[in-house]
């Protein structure tokens, strides 16, 4: 294989490897700035090579483009791995973010960041990967940010039939700590002149 071909194959492979969506020939062609026909050829070669060499993954054409997935022959091992995954509890950051999504859904990453006061992209990915939240379409505002909501799995975990079974928020009163904190804040501001 020529150097150019090896490089092109490498680029296309790296894109397929990291992408969480099927990639169309047009999309790859646009990113790599190489003619679509040539990209199609690279994809076909990869598909055959993976199959022939019996690798741990495959390349498949699905609705919307090409995507890599694990080889079905090895799924028993993958299942064993997933079951053995650390049953680590979620971090405080993840639980906080989940509670915001539960009560404010559908929400965008920006909304969540604004409420938490810190960028929450990483935490949102974790929740997506754990299947606790899901994408709920796009907001009809500039940039069309993705909207997130809780998953079916989230409801199952809490034994809920619908989101209406989340405890209501209204009977809440700020507790003493918070009340004092607010008062203290007001006092300090008033004194400093």
């Amino acid at each position: 294989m020529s150097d150019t071909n090896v490089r092109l194959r490498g680029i296309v492979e790296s894109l397929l490897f990291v992408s969480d969506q099927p990639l169309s020939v047009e999309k790859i062609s646009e990113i790599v700035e190489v003619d679509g026909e040539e990209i199609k050829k690279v994809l076909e070669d990869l598909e055959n090579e993976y199959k022939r060499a019996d690798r741990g993954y495959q390349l498949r054409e699905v609705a919307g483009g090409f995507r890599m997935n694990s080889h079905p022959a090895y799924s028993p091992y993958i299942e064993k791995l997933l079951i053995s995954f650390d049953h680590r509890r979620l971090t405080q950051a993840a639980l906080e973010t989940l509670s915001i999504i539960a009560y404010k859904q559908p929400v965008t990453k920006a909304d969540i960041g604004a409420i938490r006061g810190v960028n929450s992209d990483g935490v949102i990915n974790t929740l997506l990967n754990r299947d606790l939240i899901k994408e709920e379409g796009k907001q009809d505002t500039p940039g069309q940010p993705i909207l997130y909501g809780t998953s079916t799995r989230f409801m199952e975990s809490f034994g809920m039939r619908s989101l209406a079974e989340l405890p209501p928020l209204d009977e809440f009163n700020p507790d003493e700590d918070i009340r004092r904190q607010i008062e203290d804040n007001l006092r300090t501001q008033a004194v400093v002149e």
Partner: protein
Amino acid sequence: MAYQIKSEMYEGPFDLLLSLVSRQKIDIYDISLAGIADEYLEYIDSIQDLDLDISTEFLLVAATLLEIKAASLLPKKEEAYEEDEISPHEAREILIARLLEYKKFKNVAAELAARHEAESKYHLRDVGVEEEFKNLIPDFLAGVSRERMRKLFLAINDKKEIGLTQADHITPKPLSVEAFIDRVKLKLRGVKSTSFRDLTADCTEKVELITAFLAVLELYKQGIVDIGQAETFGDIMVIVADKSGVIA
């Protein structure tokens, strides 16, 4: 000052002090703490002009610098300091040690930054579990109750409201040494002297006391007041130095 200090942001008082110290040419016979202390205060002033909040930590280091500076101007015998009291000499040693310690970790930070930059070229596959395996993911919410979700949400929302109260309704006013100088002058009007205790009788926060102290030192530097202390831990007296004995 020969040059304008840029109003860039520093990570903290040590970062600022290090930058001031490193900027000086090593002309050890000309530059001393006095110059550094002045530049430090000038920077704090410039930040205040930009209406930014100066944190207590910056003022604490300023106070230390001024204390060392004052000691160098008013020679005092080492033995005048009680055992449990930190002498300006010791304060200087501690400050230097802390600066060196901070600088060490700043060096580490530069190394980590380079590694992080190199590492950012290696992208991981953050795709999540394939659809067919999703039912195998363990229940990460085991042991978490709905009530806990509710409490978490309310706690965050409340924190946010406190933040809004601060930001929207009562903008905190930065404490400025300038403003305290005016305040001290006002209190000294028509009297020959007063004690630091009286000057700061209405201060409730530590940071206000420090700012008042800086104001008095600044007035001392300008020759407007004299400072006296009859005994260790005694009242610090602020005496009007003007010939007429009064502040106009």
